[in-house]
C-alpha cells in the first residue's frame, strides 16, 4: 500500500505507542471501579499481566454477538479489539520549554480517561479534609489544588481547567493542569500523569484528534500549525482567520455551489418533465462567479508564502551613498556603523523589520567598488551574492552626486546577475535629498525603464521611508491581496487543489460555449467538487492526511 510520506509519518508513531499504550487503551472499555484497581496493577510495569486484559475483549465481544451472528465471516482477519489508537488518553506539556522559564506552564490531557487520570494525581484544595475517591469536575470551572506523585508526595501547586467533551479542543475530555513554569515542575507533573495511565502525545496528536473528531476540518487544522509558528501579526491574523473558518467556509460554499449545480443538472437528466428548464445564463454566471472566487483565493497563495518565509531586501550601491544610514533609519536602530568613510561596511549587516505585516530581513551590504583591500574585496563579493538572492533589491544612489558611471556599471552587474535566476524587482532609492536642490532630478526619469520604482529618501531624517515601504508592498503584490478584508491565505497543498478547481471551471466554460451536451458539464463540476472536497478533507483521500500533523509541535 503506497502511502504519502506524512501519512506514513503520522502512522509510524501510532503502533509504536501501542505496546506500552495498550495498557491505557484497554482501560476505557472497563467499568470505572475495575479500571482503577487495574491501573494500580499496571502503572508500575509497562507490560500488562496477561489475564485481566484478555478477559475484557471477550466480554465486549459477547455484547456484540447480536450484530456479529455471521460466524462465517468471523475468523482469520486482524482483530481490532485492542489498542484502537485514539481510545487512549494522551498527555503532553503544551507550553514552550525553550528559553527562560515562564511563570506558568501547562500540561494537557485528552482522552476518555483524562478526568480519572487527573483525579488520581490531583488533590483539590477544597476537598483536602474529606478525601473523596472520585474527582468529578464541573466542566470549564477552574479548581485549585496540588499534584501528587505515585508515592503521595506533593510535586506542584496547580490550577486545573477541566473541559469535558464535546466542548473541548479535541471534543474529548480535556484537562489542563496549569503548573509552575519551570521545566522540572512540568516534567514531574507530566510524569505523574503518565504513571497514572496517560501516554505521551505524539507531535500534533491533539490537533489530529480534533480533526478526527470533526472539531476542525483539514484546512483549519493546517492553520493551527501556521498560527503557532506565526512570525508576524499579519501571519498570525491570517492563520487565525483560517482556523475560524474564513477559507474553510469559502471552500465549503464553493463546493456546496458545485453540488447544487450538479444536482440541478442531474435532476434534469432524470426528471425533465417535472422541472423548470435550466436557465443557462444563470448557470454561466454562477460558474463565472465561482471561478472568480477561486482566482482570488489563489492570489493569496503568494501572500501566504511571504507570510511564512518573509522577504529579503538587499540594500546595494556604491560606497558612501548612505546604505547603512538607510538600514538604521528603516529599522529604527543603530544596527550598522555609519561613518563618512567610504567602505565602512565590510560584512553583511542584517536587521529585521516588518513591512505591511510581513517579516522583512534588511541586508546592508558593502559598497560595491573595485578595491585592493582584501577584506573589502570579500565584502563586495558577498554584496553581489546577496543582491542576486534577495527578493527585492534596493539600489541606493546619492542625490548629491546624481547618476554616475559607477552606478551605471553597478546596475549592469545587478542586471546581468539576476538575468539567470528569477527577476527580483529593483527599487531605486535616491538618498540624501536634504543635501541636494530639489530641481535637479531630471536624470531619474531617463532611468525609469531600468527600475521598477524609485523613491526619494533622506536616511538621516527618515523622510521617504514610508514611500519606500509602500513601493515594496506594491511590488510584491501585497496591496492587491490584503484589500477586501480577506485575511486568510492558502498554502501549497490547498493551492494545488485550487488550481485543479480552476482548470475544471475553465474547461466547463469551454464545454458550455461549445454547446457540448448537459451531461458532460457534470464531469468537470464533479472534478471541481472533488478538488474542493480535498481541501477541507470532506472527500476521503489519504493524500488529505499527508504532510500535516508531523509538523505540529507537541501540544497543539
Amino acid at each position: 500500500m503506497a502511502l504519502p510520506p506524512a501519512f506514513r509519518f503520522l502512522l509510524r508513531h501510532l503502533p509504536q505507542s501501542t505496546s506500552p499504550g495498550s495498557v491505557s487503551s484497554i482501560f476505557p472499555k472497563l467499568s470505572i471501579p475495575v479500571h482503577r484497581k487495574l491501573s494500580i496493577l499496571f502503572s508500575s510495569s509497562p507490560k500488562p499481566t496477561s489475564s485481566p486484559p484478555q478477559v475484557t475483549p471477550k466480554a465486549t465481544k459477547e455484547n456484540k454477538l447480536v450484530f456479529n451472528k455471521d460466524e462465517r465471516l468471523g475468523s482469520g482477519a486482524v482483530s481490532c479489539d485492542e489498542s484502537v489508537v485514539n481510545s487512549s488518553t494522551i498527555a503532553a506539556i503544551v507550553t514552550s520549554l525553550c528559553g527562560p522559564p515562564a511563570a506558568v506552564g501547562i500540561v494537557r490531557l485528552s482522552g476518555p480517561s483524562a478526568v480519572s487520570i487527573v483525579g488520581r494525581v490531583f488533590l483539590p484544595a477544597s476537598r483536602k479534609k474529606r478525601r473523596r475517591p472520585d474527582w468529578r469536575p464541573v466542566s470549564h470551572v477552574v479548581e485549585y489544588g496540588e499534584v501528587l506523585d505515585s508515592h503521595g508526595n506533593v510535586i506542584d501547586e496547580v490550577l486545573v481547567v477541566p473541559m469535558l467533551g464535546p466542548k473541548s479542543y479535541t471534543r474529548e475530555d480535556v484537562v489542563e493542569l496549569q503548573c509552575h513554569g519551570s521545566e522540572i515542575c512540568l516534567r514531574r507533573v507530566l510524569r505523574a500523569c503518565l504513571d497514572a495511565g496517560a501516554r505521551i502525545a505524539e507531535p500534533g496528536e491533539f490537533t489530529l484528534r480534533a480533526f478526527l473528531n470533526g472539531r476542525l476540518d483539514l484546512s483549519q487544522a493546517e492553520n493551527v500549525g501556521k498560527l503557532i509558528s506565526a512570525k508576524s501579526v499579519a501571519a498570525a491574523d491570517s492563520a487565525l482567520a483560517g482556523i475560524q473558518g474564513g477559507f474553510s467556509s469559502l471552500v465549503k460554499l464553493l463546493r456546496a455551489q458545485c453540488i447544487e449545480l450538479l444536482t440541478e443538472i442531474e435532476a434534469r437528466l432524470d426528471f425533465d418533465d417535472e422541472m423548470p428548464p435550466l436557465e443557462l445564463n444563470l448557470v454561466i454566471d454562477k460558474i463565472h462567479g465561482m471561478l472568480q472566487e477561486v482566482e482570488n483565493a489563489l492570489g493569496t497563495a503568494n501572500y501566504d508564502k511571504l507570510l511564512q518565509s518573509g522577504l529579503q531586501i538587499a540594500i546595494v550601491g556604491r560606497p558612501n551613498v548612505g546604505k547603512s544610514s538607510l538600514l538604521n533609519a528603516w529599522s529604527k536602530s543603530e544596527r550598522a556603523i555609519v561613518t563618512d568613510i567610504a567602505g565602512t561596511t565590510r560584512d553583511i549587516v542584517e536587521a529585521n523589520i516588518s513591512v505591511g505585516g510581513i517579516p522583512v530581513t534588511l541586508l546592508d551590504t558593502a559598497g560595491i567598488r573595485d578595491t585592493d583591500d582584501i577584506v573589502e574585496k570579500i565584502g563586495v563579493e558577498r554584496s553581489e551574492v546577496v543582491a542576486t538572492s534577495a527578493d527585492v533589491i534596493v539600489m541606493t544612489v546619492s542625490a548629491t552626486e546624481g547618476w554616475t558611471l559607477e552606478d551605471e556599471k553597478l546596475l549592469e552587474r545587478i542586471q546581468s546577475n539576476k538575468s539567470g535566476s528569477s527577476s527580483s524587482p529593483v527599487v531605486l532609492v535616491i538618498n540624501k535629498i536634504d543635501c541636494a536642490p530639489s530641481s535637479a532630478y531630471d536624470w531619474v526619469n531617463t532611468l525609469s525603464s531600468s527600475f521598477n520604482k524609485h523613491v526619494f529618501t533622506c536616511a538621516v531624517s527618515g523622510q521617504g521611508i514610508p514611500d519606500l515601504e509602500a513601493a515594496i508592498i506594491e511590488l510584491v503584490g501585497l496591496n492587491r491581496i490584503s484589500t477586501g478584508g480577506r485575511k486568510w491565505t492558502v498554502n501549497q497543498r490547498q493551492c494545488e487543489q485550487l488550481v485543479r478547481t480552476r482548470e475544471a471551471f475553465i474547461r466547463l466554460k469551454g464545454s458550455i460555449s461549445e454547446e457540448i451536451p448537459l451531461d458532460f458539464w457534470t464531469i468537470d463540476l464533479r472534478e471541481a467538487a472533488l478538488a474542493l472536497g480535498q481541501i477541507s478533507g470532506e472527500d476521503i483521500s489519504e493524500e488529505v492526511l499527508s504532510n500535516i500533523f508531523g509538523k505540529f509541535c507537541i501540544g497543539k
Partner: protein
Amino acid sequence: MTTTLSLHLTRIVSQFPVPSSLFCPLSSAKQRPQLLKCRLGLRFHVHRCFFASPYATPRRCFSISASNSQGWDKDSDTSNERYDVIVVGGGHAGCEAALSSARIGAKTLLLTLNIDRIAWQPCNPAVGGPAKSQLVHEVDALGGEIGKVADRCYLQKRILNISRGPAVRALRAQTDKREYASEMKKIVESTPNLSIREAMVTDILVGKNDNVEGVHTFFGMNFYAPSVVLTTGTFMSGKIWVGKTSMPAGRAGESASHGLTENLQQLGFETDRLKTGTPARVDCRTVDFSGLEPQHGDEEVNWFSFDPDYHIEREQMCCYLTRTTKSTHQLIKDNLHETPTYGGWVEAKGPRYCPSIEDKIVRFQDKESHQIFLEPEGRSVPELYVQGFSTGLPERLQLPLLRTLPGLENCSMLRPAYAVEYDYLPAHQCFRSLMTKKIEGLFFSGQINGTTGYEEAAAQGIISGINAARHSDGKSLIVLERESSYIGTLIDDLVTKDLREPYRMLTSRSEHRLLLRSDNADSRLTPLGREIGLIDDRRWKIYLDKQARISEEKQRLKKTRISGGDLAAEITEVSGQPVRDSSTLESLLKKPHIQYKVFDKHGFGNDLLSRLDKECVEVDIKYEGFIVRQQNQLQQMVNQQHKRLPEDLDYYAMTTLSHEAREKLSKVRPQTIGQASRVGGVSPADVTALLIILESNRRRANEERRHQMLTSIVADANQEVSEGLLKETTIS
C-alpha cells in the same frame, strides 16, 4: 433408513493464502434417505479485473445417490425434487434468475404462485427509460433475456434525452403486456435444465451450518437445493388498497403469499414494509384522441439487445399526451383526506420518484398542470395505461378524476388504480453477490430487496441466478463493482444504503456514468458473460467482430487526412471552426456539432459499419477527452475506495468513530472503504478515522511479524555463534 455421512472440511478463512489446511472430519446423521453425501469445503479468494468476491464460499458438492436404494422406502421419489437451484417467484427477477442459472448448467426449479402470470407487467407495460435502459443493455450484454423480449414485443420505441449526451441517452419501449408475458413464458418453458411448478413457499429449509437446504411449500412439499433465490415481488404479505378498502393480495386478483415473512423473521432477518401503486386503465375506445398531442415512435428504431437476430422491426403504435386541468387539481385537493397517505392509514413508504398524482399536486403547489401520457397496453386489448396518474383515491372518485383530463371526458374505466403494500428485506442483509449474510446459499432479488421496476428486478435476477448456480457448483461468486456497471451501482446502493423507500435506478446514481453508456455495455460486460457461460459461440463471434470493426474504423479515421473540399466546407460551416489542411477525419469528428453522418454524406464513411457501430466510433472519438478525464477520476477513487475492510472489524471498539457510524457500520458491515463511506450516517471524518485504524493495525501486524522474524534470526545467530565457539574450542 440409510444414514447420511457428511464429511466437512472446515473452511479456511484468511486474508492471505494459507498453504496448509486444517482438516477436521465431522459426521452427522441426518435423515436424508438414500443419499451419501460428501462435502469438501474450501474457501479461497478470487481477484479479477473488476469483479471479486472474497465472500464466495465455493463448495464443491458431490451428490451421489446410493445405488443400493432400498425399495421399501416410501419417500424414494423425493430424490426427484432435488435441484441445484430453486427460484421462488416468476416475475422479472425470477425469470432472469431461473434462465441464467439453467443456462449455466444448474438443474433449476422455478416455483411460482401462478404459471399464467410469469413475467407479468402489472404496472406500466414499458421497458427502459433513463438509467433503466442501461440496466437492460447490461443484462443483455451478460446474456440475459429482458432486452430480447422487449425488442420482440414492442409497441413503440423512443430514444429519450437524445440531446443530453451519450451517457444519459435512453431507449424506452412500450411493450405488449400479454405478448411480453407469453413470449417470456415460452422461453422459460423451453429452456433445458429448467422446471416450473406452481407452489407457495412458506419456509426456507436451513441446514446445520446456517446453509440453505431447500424450501417447504404450503401444501407440504419439500424441494431441496443448495441455492435458493427468493424473488417474491409484492406478494409477501401483500395487501392492496383502493381508497380506505384493503384486501390481502399480491396484485389485483391474485392472492398474496403468507408465512414466508414470519419464517424469515425467525431466521433472524429484518423485514419492513413498502408501498407502490398503479394507475387506472381506461378503455381506449372511449377516449377522444383528436385534440391530444400524439407521441410517435422513432423512425430509426434502436434496440436493447446487442444480438442483431432480435432486431426485427414491427409496426409501431402511437401514444398520446394529455395534461391535468384546474378541475383535476381541485378534485384532488377537495378529497385529500380520502387518500391513504394524507388520510394517514397506510404508513409504508411509496416511491418518491414515481409519485401519485396527489403527491405531485401537494408537492408542486405552484405547478398548474402535469403531463399525463396515454399508452396502449397491447395490440389486442383496449386497455390504455394512464401514465403519471396513479392515485390512492377511492374508486368512486377515480372515474370523475379521470374525466377531468382532456380527451377522457367520456372515458370508461376498466381497472381502478390501486396501491399495494408488501414485505421487503432491507438489502444490507445481502452481500454484493446478493447472497444473504445470514444464510449461506440464500439469495434475494427484486422487490424483496426494496427496488421498484422490471429492469431493476431483472438486473438483480441475472446476478443472483448466476451466483446461485455458481454457488451450487462450488465456484466463486461474481460481484460487479459499482464502477463497472449500473447493475453494480444498483446492488452497491442496495447493500450499503439503508433504504426505506422503493429504490429506482436513476442516471444520477452513477458517479461515472460517462463510462457506463448503453453503447459500450457489451464491451464492458459481454466478456464476463462469456466467461460465466451465458454467451454462446455465435454471440461471442458477433461481439468480437463488432469490436474489431470499431477499432479498425477508429484507426482509419486517425490516418485518413483531407484538405479542403466539400467536406471541409461543410464542417467549417456547421462547427464554426476552420479546417486546417491535411486534417485527420478524427480531428474533424471532434469539432462541435459534427457527427459521423457528415462523412457518409461526402463519401468518407465506411459501409462495413452499421449505424450502431458508427455511433460507438463517434462517441469514442468525440468525447475522448471527457472519457479520459472521467477515467482518471475513477482511477483516483478506485485506488482509495477499493481498499478492503477486514471482515470482522469491531466497529464498536473504534472510539474515534461517531456513535452513529459505529452502529451503522456494524449493521451494514461494508466490504470496502468506499462502501463504508456510502453508508448513511458515516461522515468523511469517520472514514478518515477508519483509514488510520486500518493502517495502524496493518503496521502493528507487520511489526509483530518482523519481531518474530528478528527473534528467530537472533536465535539462529546465537546457535551459530555457539556452534562456532564449539568448533573453535575443538580446533584449539
